[in-house]
């Protein structure tokens, strides 16, 4: 019994020590470290107009950059922008290279396993196919066996190729894909509805439209580190505020994006 007690005591001490050491090892506190550094490092897109793109001086601007600026202002710190792409944005966050990610990322359960994606979401997109109005495409099944241009890293590419049987021609940038569409190398481009909505007004694309019913509506979320519930809760509050005050709707207008029903709906919800 004595020995047993001794062991019990020892293990209790060990457990306490672990508990004390545990949070320090596994939990990160982004807010504290950001305040200590005096700057927040935000990963944004630099090739996705108008959410995050480059201006002639090399500066990154766009709707999501405005959001990032707002977060920095609320935290009372400087901002540093790091351009990310779909292939490295989650890795950067995990490594600690960036503190926060606002990079046109659609919410996906498997993504939420790797990083923290606080709710509510700040935007929503869906996938559609941009093609000539005269293409005769009516349903996704019509794509079967036809060449369809796609952009690297989009989550609906797989579905378009595997479920609907399209022959995907994948490009690195959306402009390349649009050029291929123009040149007749593919029957349509599968991409975010948000992007197509932005170019619909152009005279150049007057003969084209989103010809299919949109699929896979996905809300867009910001990314924080998985083990940082404090920062996630903070960002939740910030995003709620963005909806409530109509900040997102105002930004949408500022960047010339057609009003999305999602934002109107969310604003009504949080009012």
């Amino acid at each position, binding site marked *: 019994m004595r020995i047993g007690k001794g062991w019990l005591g020892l293990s209790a001490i060990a457990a306490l020590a672990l508990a004390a050491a545990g949070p320090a090892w596994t939990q990160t506190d982004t807010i504290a470290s950001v305040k200590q550094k005096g700057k927040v490092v935000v990963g944004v897109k630099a090739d*996705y107009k108008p959410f995050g793109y480059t201006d002639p*001086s090399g500066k990154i601007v766009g709707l999501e950059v405005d959001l990032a600026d707002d977060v920095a202002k609320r935290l009372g710190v400087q901002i540093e922008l790091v351009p990310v792409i779909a292939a*490295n944005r989650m890795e950067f966050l995990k*490594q600690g290279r960036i503190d926060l990610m606002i990079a046109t990322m659609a919410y996906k359960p498997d993504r939420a396993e790797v990083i923290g994606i606080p709710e509510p979401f700040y935007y929503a997109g869906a996938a559609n196919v941009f093609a000539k109005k005269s293409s005769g495409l009516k349903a996704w099944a019509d794509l079967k066996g036809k060449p369809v241009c796609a952009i690297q890293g989009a989550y609906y590419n797989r579905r378009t190729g595997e479920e609907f049987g399209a022959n995907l021609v994948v490009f690195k940038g*959306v402009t390349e894909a*649009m050029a291929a569409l123009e040149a007749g190398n593919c029957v349509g481009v599968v991409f975010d509805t948000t992007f197509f909505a932005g170019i619909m007004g152009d005279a150049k694309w007057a003969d084209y439209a989103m010809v299919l019913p949109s699929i896979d509506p996905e809300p867009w979320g910001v990314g924080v580190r998985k083990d940082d519930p404090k920062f996630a809760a903070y960002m939740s509050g910030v995003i709620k505020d963005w909806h409530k005050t109509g900040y997102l709707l105002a930004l949408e207008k500022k960047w010339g994006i057609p009003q999305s029903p999602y934002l109107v709906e969310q604003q009504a919800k949080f009012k």
Partner: protein
Amino acid sequence: MLTSRAGVALLAAFVASIVVAQVQAIPGQPSVVELLVKWTPLLAKGFLFNLLISFFAMLVGTLAGVLLGSARISPRPPVRGMSWIVVQFFRNAPWLVLLFFVMFLLPFEFHVGGTTIPFPDWIKATLGLALPIMANVAEILRGAVQSIPTAQWDAARSLAFSRRQTLWKIILPQCVKRMLPPWMNWYAILTMATTLASIVGVSEVMTLTLRITNAEGRTDLLIPIYSYVLLWFFVYCWPISLMTRRLEARYEVR
């Protein structure tokens, strides 16, 4: 092989692409030439970055390659064997794979004591590109040493030179001349390969070109801007290639 004829063809393609874009231009939009002028400063910044990466990768690759090459001609079989494996691995692995490997293996910052030393992406890319250069420089060194008639080694020994003295004072000075053309050739190849860094997210000229085309959203800009960048690389690499061939002709072993 970069020839002046290729340069003329490239220039012609560039001019033709601009003419085509001008003809198809929609009135009211800025012309392709205006756009190229507008973005040139940013592209230049990106291109300088490529050159920076190429300089450092060549420097690191050459220093490491000389060491590795010396190991390749070591009289000790284990050293020779090990270095053979290293050389074969890095010569035959695709550059992009090495690049990815280095990018994701190395941390983005180091903690030494209380200070944090950042380790930016472009330095990681530089190290990744230095690896194949290292292996190829090692092979160039080995080849050059072995191309010196072995009789010289025997002659040196008969004059009581040690192995080290023979290598440093007799063999290597002759090798430098022979190594120069292939070394410069690898530099030109490396410079062109720096664009691979765009795939791992370094903001070099190709990354910027993609960002520019997306910012403009103009499909007619694609061919002119990519041929424009191609032309820059040609203008930089062509003199190197020309000089390499001249040196090769001069040092040719007959």
